């Protein structure tokens, strides 16, 4: 997040009136203060719920990076978060507010399950089929919102959100029939709605580094982050997408079709979420079931990924460390339970951290705004 001051300049349209040096100090101070405040609040919360903050913090660090094998686990959790965030960055750059990643991810994982069994086979090819099936599912789900928007004018904020609920029901429905997603009788441990395990040959390979095991999807996600950052900054396509997001009328005149580029961005953003779902399904790892699709499989990864993108302020590369931090809170929470404090306290900590990371830009924005009264007047 070292380039935050940079971000502020490009993200806030308001002319800045403080010298650059002062500005960086200002940002650093604000960020440190608000993160500190979030940590102090978290500590107080822990204390009031009967724990004490030191062991909780220690458990959090153990659970996320320090204990053997844990950072591998965290990397595994960071992967879908990063993928979801990348998709969000793409749609946000085009000026779209896609907030239905949770649903797109779920449909992606369902599609991966279904097509994975349909195609079967093993080896690199079928793994790729599974992952792409996920992307396809997510894109389809976001595509519905796209059709609604560009054909009927339904705002994507509403449609993507509503589609999250429908996705949950659709998958629950699919998990009731064995010709859809439900595992056949013989293989089922209990009568709950679970899918069959992803076949061995269809799983994303896992590697072990210094005793930390994680799926190689980590590398794919990081490579995609670099690619997305590059494509947005350096390709004609990214240029036009940014133009659309920043000034739709200028874009319209220049030949950037709102329908074409907008729906493309929406589809891609859904594809990333769906891909994340497939990677969770076929990648294993403690948090994401056991290569099985279950109701509620998406486990808030979509929502959290959205937050990652928000905190990274639409920067694909910044999303990498942010995703890791958020994943750490997730993996660390399992260890917090051992201190006698409810593990879900990390959800609250996460919320506080998100707020802490969003407050500084907001403060600066509002202050600039106040100085400028309105963005446009300050521009010349």
């Amino acid at each position: 997040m070292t380039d935050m001051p940079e971000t502020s300049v490009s993200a806030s349209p308001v002319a800045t009136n403080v010298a650059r040096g002062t500005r960086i100090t200002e940002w650093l101070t604000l960020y440190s203060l608000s993160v500190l405040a979030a940590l102090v609040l978290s500590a107080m919360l822990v204390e009031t719920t009967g724990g004490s903050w030191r062991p909780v913090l220690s458990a959090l660090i153990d659970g996320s990076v320090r204990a053997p094998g844990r950072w591998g686990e965290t990397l595994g959790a960071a992967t879908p978060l990063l993928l979801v965030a990348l998709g969000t960055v793409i749609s946000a750059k085009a000026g779209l507010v896609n907030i239905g990643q949770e649903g797109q991810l779920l449909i992606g994982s369902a599609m991966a399950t279904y097509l994975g069994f349909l195609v079967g086979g093993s080896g690199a090819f079928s793994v790729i089929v599974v992952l792409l099936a996920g992307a396809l599912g997510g894109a389809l789900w976001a595509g519905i919102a796209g059709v609604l928007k560009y054909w009927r004018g339904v705002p994507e904020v509403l449609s993507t959100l509503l589609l999250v609920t429908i996705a949950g029901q659709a998958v629950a429905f699919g998990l009731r029939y064995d010709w859809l997603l439900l595992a056949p009788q013989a293989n089922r441990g209990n009568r709950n709605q679970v899918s069959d395990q992803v076949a061995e040959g269809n799983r994303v390979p896992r590697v072990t580094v210094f005793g930390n095991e994680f799926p190689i999807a980590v590398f794919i996600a990081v490579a995609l982050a670099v690619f997305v950052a590059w494509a947005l900054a350096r390709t004609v396509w990214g240029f036009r997408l940014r133009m659309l997001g920043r000034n739709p009328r200028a874009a319209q005149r220049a030949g950037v079709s709102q329908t074409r580029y907008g729906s493309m961005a929406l589809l891609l953003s859904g594809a990333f979420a769906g891909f994340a779902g497939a990677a969770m399904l076929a990648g294993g790892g403690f948090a994401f079931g056991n290569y099985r699709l279950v109701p509620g499989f998406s486990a808030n990864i979509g929502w959290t990924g959205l937050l990652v993108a928000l905190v990274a302020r639409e920067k694909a590369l910044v999303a990498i460390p942010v995703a890791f931090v958020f994943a750490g809170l997730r993996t660390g929470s399992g260890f917090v339970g051992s201190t006698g404090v409810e593990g879900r306290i990390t959800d609250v900590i996460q919320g506080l951290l998100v707020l802490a990371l969003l407050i500084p830009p907001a403060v600066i924005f509002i202050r600039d705004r106040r100085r400028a009264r309105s963005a446009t007047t300050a521009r010349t």
Partner: protein
Amino acid sequence: MGASAPAPAVELTGITKKYGAVVACGDVDLTLHRGRIHGILGENGAGKSTLMKILIGLVLPDSGTIAVDGKRCTIHDPIDAARLGIGMVHQHFSLIDALTVWENVALGDAGRLDPQAVRSRIGEISDQYGLGIEPDARVGDLTAGLRQRVEIIKCLRRDPSIVVFDEPTSVLTPDESLQLFAALRHVVAAENRAVVLVSHKLDEVLASTDEITIMRQGRVVDRRPTAGTAARQLATAMVGREVSLRAERAALGVIAVDDVAHDETAEHEVDDSVAPALSIRDATVIGAGGVRLLDQLDLDVRPGEIVGVAGVEGNGQRALGDLLSSLVRLQSGTVMAGGQQVAAGRSGAMSRAGIAVIPEDRHDSGCVLDMTVAENLVLVNQRRVARRGVIDQAALNEFALRMIADFGIQCSGPDAPMWSLSGGNQQRVVLARELSDQPTVLVAAQPTRGLDVGAIEYMTERLRAAAQAGVAVLLISSELEEIIDIATRVVVIHRGRIVGEMAHHELDLERLGLLMGGAAA
């Protein structure tokens, strides 16, 4: 300036503001007295707006002091400024289209809203300054001139005792601005206010100010009382060289129109038999609320012609520009460019057909403020700097540097964000981009708005040169004199229709005036 006189309303001393290597203001002194109007002149990017923003608290100076009524003070934000009685009318609009006039005016008010009070206050000010503003009109439906007046009301409503106008009249007609300044002069004297006027219109400054400060590249280069000063002296001091004031005066609407009939424009008549490069037939555009913005408009522009569209603002000029920018659909009719029909309203169709546009409001569809200068220079056509879909940064940079040099764009470099440029320099970016694309048709809507005298001269030359090179130029302007100066043929637009037309050599001002007023010819 007598020794016993009360302390000046505002005294700025040694004000310096740098943006990186750019010195926007360097050691500037400025004194404003009550009861006087102070004009500030200077080239594009000279630092005028920056100085004014320092006074209003939008920009904090790096060094220097401010004293208001003899008391030292620091102005951190416009709220501080308002407390000191300083108000400003900005160069660019900050209005919200979807709201009505009174809602826009009340925007940002603290406390309980009293719509009736706001409305009646608007009425009062409107009458006092002869602004003719209807409080319940929707801002989106207003012409640029009327919007500017809403901005003025927004500022004057708070009864500031020190008023800053940053190019308030760039979208007003000469008559309108005369009226505004007559009213202003009256209240300045009667109520002892201090007024600063930033303007590129020399004659306006000469007619309405008491003293003048001229800035160049961030510094004050001249300070003089208005009385006894001639426009030519001002222009020379501003630009640092002699400029052709003819073009400038024409663009700014002060030339004596009868002596233009025999200039070089007239010699360049175009053969009627040449096929038009742009041909609009029977074009009807329906706006929000079912208003006919264009009503069966017919218009031809041939290669080499400069067709001036004259008319009172709000008669369809904006819709015409939007139509040729692919921003609106046609209800009926056709647009043909180079003999091919163009799909109106389809994104990019017009620009692909070779129609370049300098839009009337550069911030609307002319540029993307959050992108860099270099990016804005290739907004319409990225192909020239791209290879297989990837933008070649070196090529982009090189192209931008060339344009920056060719068009004298003042900025910290190709990577400067567009919003950091001064108004006139933003306009130059738009001009540079549109001309560099080798269009077959060039639509220039109010192209000289916000440009300094030197740049107006340059713009006029470029438009003429483009026509000479075979481009069909369509000049949409609310400045009749500008049209008369450079157009080879003049058409008059009224209520969305072309109601009359005359070649340059048969110009008849009286008839033109009648046509513009809607009298059948």
